[in-house]
């Protein structure tokens, strides 16, 4: 676990030593600030973070692949994966470390929007239940997205390919669990609706943290991380 934490802290630091981390963070803070100002800080609007959290859910679709794309692809491209894999650290620890690094950066990014909660507190009396549940939901969705991105990053040397593959996967998932599910009859639509991220996210936005949603995101994240471990291990057998 110590090795995984060493890798995670190196990943978070690497995000801030390269321009991509600062660019992603600055864009997200800027856009979320604008959205918060335009949608929430308006007369007559409820004192909630719902608009910003909904917005962040969609932004995450772009941001999560941007964070995850470099996790392995960069090491594979530069060859630094060999010195890493010649240490006595297990492939699982390497994947978990990289993933936690990405998740740590995402956490920092989401934490930056807590300033808006402070602003809301200053001008109104917000209900903290939906805010806490909303942030928990965002973090879970982000964790799921990052796990998908980690898998694709472990499969290619090219960061752009990793980014696009992750993005197309999300688009396919949204299409299957949205428009396609609506077109299909039972029982196919029932199965596809269970994969819908927005439906689960809506519950979090209402202030409800349901165990089945938590299990869904955590379980699928584990599946994709296991895939990333398999992709990494396969390098030793190819």
């Amino acid at each position: 676990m110590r090795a995984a934490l060493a890798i995670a802290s190196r990943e978070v630091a690497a995000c801030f030593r390269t321009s991509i981390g600062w660019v992603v963070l600055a864009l997200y803070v800027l856009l979320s600030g604008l959205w918060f100002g335009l949608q929430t800080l308006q007369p007559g609007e409820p004192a909630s973070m719902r608009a910003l959290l909904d917005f962040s859910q969609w932004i995450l679709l772009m941001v999560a692949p941007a964070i995850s794309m470099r996790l392995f692809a960069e090491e594979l491209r530069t060859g630094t994966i060999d010195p890493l894999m010649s240490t006595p650290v297990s492939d699982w620890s390497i994947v978990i470390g990289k993933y936690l690094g990405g998740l740590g950066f995402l956490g920092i990014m989401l934490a930056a929007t807590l300033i808006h909660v402070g602003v809301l507190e200053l001008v109104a009396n917000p209900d903290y239940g939906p805010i806490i549940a909303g942030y928990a939901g965002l973090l879970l969705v982000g964790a799921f997205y990052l796990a998908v991105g980690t898998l694709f990053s472990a499969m290619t040397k090219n960061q752009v390919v990793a980014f696009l593959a992750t993005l197309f996967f999300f688009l396919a998932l949204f299409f299957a669990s949205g428009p396609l599910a609506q077109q299909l009859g039972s029982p196919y639509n029932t199965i596809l609706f269970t994969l819908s991220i927005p439906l689960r996210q809506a519950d979090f936005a209402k202030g409800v943290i349901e165990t089945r949603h938590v299990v869904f995101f955590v379980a699928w994240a584990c599946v994709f991380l296991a895939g990333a471990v398999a992709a990494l291990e396969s390098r030793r057998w190819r």
Partner: protein
Amino acid sequence: MIELEKVDRSFGRVHAVRAVSFSVPAGAIVGVLGPNGAGKTTTIRLITGLLPPTRGRVVLNGAEVAPERRDLRRRIGYLPEANPLPAEMSVEGYLKYRARLFGMHGRSARDTINRTLDRCKVTDMRKRRIEHLSKGYRQRVGLAAALLHNPPLLILDEPTSGLDPAQVLETRALIAELAGQHTTLLVSHILPEVERTCDRLLIFAGGKLRADGTREALLAQSGANRYIVEYKSRANANNDLLAAVPGVNRCTTQSLNDQWTRAAVEFDTDVTDAGARLGAAAATHALTLRELRHDRPTLESLYISLVERAEEPV
């Protein structure tokens, strides 16, 4: 310390390494030579456990190397070809990171890092980002990372590749210093580098180990017993007359521009007085000589002949 037993490694239909067997005792400094694509780096990756063999066994200190034997990785310090390093990290930051991956913490990790920085003569650059270092310094950082956990086996893959002559000399001197303290495998396709640093050579070509031994033993095994004779050409004379000398198994002649002929005369390896025989033949035929010398085989000529032999169609 290391033993390879009939090791094969294929990538699909490509046989990168075929039936390679050798052993390296503890403390030896072994040069691994061969042209690009000879199977050197694949063999090294098999020893480090980064690749498993398709067939055969790699044994390190009595334990079979396999990807799941993570404990064996502590015994190996590996500087990969092209020395990949995280450009955005500082020298010290990178070594701290590596120390944590090898389970070192606290004061002992700090002391080890300081010692390694000193040993690799990179202390003055410890705060510098790796991307801002010269190639020579980067190579030292790569060496420091490979040495940090004080491994008994040090594997250096093309450590002077891409360096300027001054940096090559610096790096070579550093390797020579380190080599006495670790069993060392030095991979290179630069002959003088390996010749000067190593006490034993492994020559690879076409995925196979073609030669294994000390420089002197390899040259002795090469079997060449060749003399060069330059004599004044004579009109209407047989320029192959040295071919008739007893013990000669091959004689090739070449007319030089200035009325002289150069003959390369190969004797059977058991002929010990070849020079005297050639001298007597020259006297018999009243040849005017300007040169008669034993053409001693060099590592370069042996290497080239092995590589050329490997490239010949079967």
